[in-house]
């Protein structure tokens, strides 16, 4: 537990001193999601219908933008090597890094999403569901994305490869995340979609760190 808190604290400290990286992701998300209404035109019914999908895709791309940094900086300065030889279990360290990643990317996206949703004329209850679906879904992006980031560590052009690797894994999150909002717009109870998102979160919280640890050990061999 001390190891978890120490890594979490350090990650947040570093993020706080590199605000540009955090803001970059958030601004990217806001700009991409705001371009669609401008391109598609001001037809309220059309905008409402596409809102959830657009916001979720923008969130996926924003998360993808932030993932290559997750391990690369630590790899270059040698701290990743220190983490691998530390007595603290690597899984705990990796989980702390993933939690910090979510706090600095996923959480701001989820909080900004209702504001974006207003541009699409979403009603208040749909905005709440959008926020809930992102709050449950974005940790999955960090968890599975960490495995992808570890697998592509040190690979030239790893960013493009990372996209090919993790975007297919993000598909269920996109389907059920956007589906929850569409369901609530259609007057259907979205709790089934949200429960399935929760199930994905439970599975990926085991699989993600485990796969990331295995990949890191190979990358630093």
């Amino acid at each position, binding site marked *: 537990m*001390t*190891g978890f808190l*120490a*890594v979490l604290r*350090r990650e947040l*400290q*570093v993020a706080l*001193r*590199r605000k540009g990286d955090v803001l970059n992701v958030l601004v990217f998300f806001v700009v991409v999601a705001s371009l669609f209404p401008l391109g598609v035109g001001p037809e309220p019914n059309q905008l409402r219908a596409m809102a959830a999908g657009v916001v979720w895709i923008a969130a996926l791309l924003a998360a993808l933008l932030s993932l290559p940094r997750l391990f690369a*900086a630590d790899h*270059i*300065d*040698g*701290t990743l*090597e*220190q*983490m*691998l*030889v*530390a*007595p*603290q*279990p690597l899984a705990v*360290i990796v989980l702390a890094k993933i939690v910090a990643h979510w706090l600095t990317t996923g959480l701001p996206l989820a909080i900004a999403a209702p504001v974006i949703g207003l541009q699409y004329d979403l009603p208040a209850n749909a905005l709440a569901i959008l926020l809930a679906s992102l709050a449950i879904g974005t940790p999955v992006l960090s968890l599975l994305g960490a495995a992808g980031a570890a697998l592509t560590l040190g690979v030239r052009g790893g960013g493009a490869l990372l996209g090919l690797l993790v975007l297919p894994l993000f598909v269920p999150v996109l389907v059920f995340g956007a589906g929850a909002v569409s369901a609530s717009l259609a007057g259907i109870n979205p709790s089934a979609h949200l429960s399935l998102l929760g199930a994905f979160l439970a599975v990926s919280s085991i699989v993600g760190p485990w796969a990331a640890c295995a990949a890191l050990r190979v990358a*630093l*061999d």
Partner: protein
Amino acid sequence: MLETMALACERGGLPLFSGLSFALGPGGLLRVRGANGSGKTTLLRTLAGLTRPSAGSVRWRGNPIDGEYHKEMLFFGHLPGMKDELTVLENLAFSSKLSELENPDFKKALERLGVARLADLPARYLSQGQRRRAALARLALSAGVPLWLLDEPFAALDAEGIAQLSALCAAHLAADGMLVLTSHQDVPIASAAPQEIELR
């Protein structure tokens, strides 16, 4: 305490060394020599458990290396392992937490390496040698860690830094610590049981 049995390593399919056996006991110093690319770093990374040997095994207290081993081993590689965004003190505090060191005295450790006045400076402002010294302050905190594995620890250090580091190493050996190091420089370190391996 630290033993290797018929250790063999390869890099990218190229065999580096094979049949390497040695044993290191309390107070023992092992110098690893060899030309560039002869496998010195690979040997140290294998001893640290970072790289898997292609044959043979590394044993610590008679057992294969595992989680417990990492509590009793300190590995210092080519990279200093300092985050540019954090201050020298924050870096040192983090690595001591990561290594589960007890009651670390950071100020004294930085003084031993002559970088105490840089404590509150973000690491990105440090020169190469200062960065190296600040990272090596970790050794001054790790007197209780029995096995030190140091890869080219004298690189980028000036004469004063080399003297400070070799004094630190000698003190570690005198307290029955163990030390494996690779170095191109012939820095004298007082040891009761020095050994040498030449890789070719």
